[in-house]
């Protein structure tokens, strides 16, 4: 091979060339970032993780009506324990290892992550729970394979890396429709044995196999993913022999940079469907119910601005909160039943969110988000509309450590019921919520 030099290349051209090359060299989207290593530049084992200590508080307003009148309202308690309206917590504490087991062969990557914080994963599962354990095989161009337990391709809020999430709490539409809780019963029969989750929340993950890749066309990056999974969240087998199917498509115009905060404009759409087995109805007979979700949205990040919007639709297996909005497990005032978690297996819901962020200073970003959820649209008595406006501020101590402060203006109502009805009187007591969190990635 002949060594060649172009002596007329100026420093300016050099800089421009390096900038362009830097942007194209790193495949930067959630499918690629969470489990795929850069070719021939991945470590054999890279240890990493993050910690999120936080404080959250509401006024702790009590239930003004209904069978649990005067008791704690579940929506004014702080999760996952729901015992107090104000508390410190370690929301997440995750430790992981990722890399290429055999560095010379960059076609095989692995990703391993455990959760030791206090949240819906560990509250209902083990104190230390496996969240990710996947192997990615990059042998076939445009047809990479990922097997194991990992984030399914879907809603942006769930699919994105949580350590770059710009808020402390999820939107209602994501929390109720996408952050799946798994139950044995729909909770429709009152009694002294409360219906409760049978394990960890789904954490936007599934166990299965995914075919995916990203195609670069000029400044655009087009991605696809198909996945088949158990449809049973994390650390569970397939309890009903039915599988969940996922489809995801995205196109992003890349403006520059790399990694999770890469600048670009992305359009995406997704669909998922499966069946869940549940004891339902007055007879509590075991039945299979369809659970389908789909949505589309867009994200934008350029210079000081950041924006996002997504619409989500849900058909079947609608998580419906608790009886009388009481804390699950609490006895009603007559002493006849305890509050259960509920699911509406054949109802529908939809919602959306709009989010905007602006860096007023290199170390400070101000954020505002509006989210809307119309839950149980098929039954007037059950329909609830939730609206939240979240004001946020982020202070970046450095690239790895930041502090978030959020204030949520929360509103809810039962639109098909009279304003003086019990559900509406209860929902009127929904408090605003203040949250503060420090996030350190290592």
């Amino acid at each position, binding site marked *: *091979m002949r*060594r*060649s*030099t*172009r*002596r007329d*290349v*100026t*420093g300016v*051209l*050099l*800089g421009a*060339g*390096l900038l*362009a*090359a*830097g942007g*194209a*060299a*790193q495949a930067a989207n959630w499918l690629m970032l969470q489990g795929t290593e*850069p*070719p*021939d*530049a*991945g*470590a*054999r084992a890279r240890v990493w993780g993050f910690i999120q200590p936080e404080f959250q508080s509401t006024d702790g307003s009590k239930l003004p009506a209904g069978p649990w009148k005067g008791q704690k309202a579940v929506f004014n308690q702080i999760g996952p324990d729901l015992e107090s309206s104000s508390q410190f917590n370690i929301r997440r504490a995750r430790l992981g290892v990722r890399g290429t087991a055999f*560095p*010379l*062969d*960059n076609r095989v990557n692995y990703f391993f992550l455990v959760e030791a914080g206090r949240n819906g994963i560990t509250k209902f599962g083990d104190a230390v729970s496996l969240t990710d354990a996947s192997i990615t095989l990059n042998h076939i161009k445009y047809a990479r394979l990922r097997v194991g337990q990992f984030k399914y391709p879907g809603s942006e809020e769930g699919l994105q890396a949580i350590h770059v999430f710009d808020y402390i709490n999820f939107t209602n539409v994501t929390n109720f429709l996408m952050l799946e809780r798994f139950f044995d019963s729909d909770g429709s029969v009152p009694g002294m044995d409360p219906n409760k989750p049978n394990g960890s929340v789904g954490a936007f993950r599934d166990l299965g196999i995914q075919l995916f890749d990203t195609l670069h066309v000029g400044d655009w990056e087009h991605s696809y993913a198909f996945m088949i999974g158990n449809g049973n969240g994390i650390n569970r087998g397939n309890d009903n022999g039915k599988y969940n199917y996922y489809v995801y498509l995205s196109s992003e115009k890349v403006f520059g940079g790399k990694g999770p905060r890469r600048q670009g404009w992305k359009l995406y759409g997704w669909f998922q469907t499966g069946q869940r087995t549940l004891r339902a109805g007055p007879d509590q007979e075991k039945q299979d119910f369809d659970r389908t979700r789909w949505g589309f949205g867009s994200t934008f990040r350029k210079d000081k601005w950041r924006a996002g919007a997504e619409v989500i639709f849900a058909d079947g297996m609608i998580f419906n909160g608790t009886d009388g909005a009481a804390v699950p497990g609490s006895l009603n005032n007559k002493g006849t039943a305890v509050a259960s978690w509920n699911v509406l297996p054949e109802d529908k819901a939809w919602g959306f969110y709009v989010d905007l962020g602006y860096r007023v200073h290199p170390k400070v970003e101000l954020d505002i988000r509006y989210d809307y959820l119309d839950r149980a649209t098929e039954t007037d008595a059950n329909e609830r509309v939730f609206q939240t406006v979240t004001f946020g501020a982020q202070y970046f101590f450095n690239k790895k450590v930041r502090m978030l402060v959020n204030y949520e203006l929360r509103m809810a109502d039962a639109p098909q019921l009279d304003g003086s009805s019990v559900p509406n009187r209860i929902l009127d007591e929904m408090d605003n919520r203040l949250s503060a969190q420090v996030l350190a990635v290592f």
Partner: protein
Amino acid sequence: MIHRLLSSLLVLVLTLPLSAGAETPQSEDKPFAEVHVVLQISDRDPFKQTLVLNVANNLLKAYGPDKVDIEVVAFGPGLRLLLADNANKGRIEALAGSGVRFSGCMNTLRNFTRQLGHEPALNPHAVKVSAGVVRIIELVKQGYILIKP
């Protein structure tokens, strides 16, 4: 006056052999280079790949592409930088365009071939040298400054 002239001639004669003995690095591609640097990459850490390319880029910016002569020598686990699919291939392309040379160790390549069962493709800008460490010694003997970021 004559005495002073003779003294000057004597000094000149005495210093001539010394000047001839101190070899000045010469590069066909960089005839105007005033600084000659060999950058060693022999580490498996991917961060070092980025670092060595950053150093090369910073040298080009500091001295100007015509005034600095840079050769990156990769051997051992560091040879991954010069494999064809390496994530930094775009940066290597840009640096090669500014005259940075890249040398890959044949001994390591043979070792990689044994482990993989096939010879991995090298970056088109990489030039095979029989032994990376020997290449570095040769360049240092020519007057290159060795830097191992």
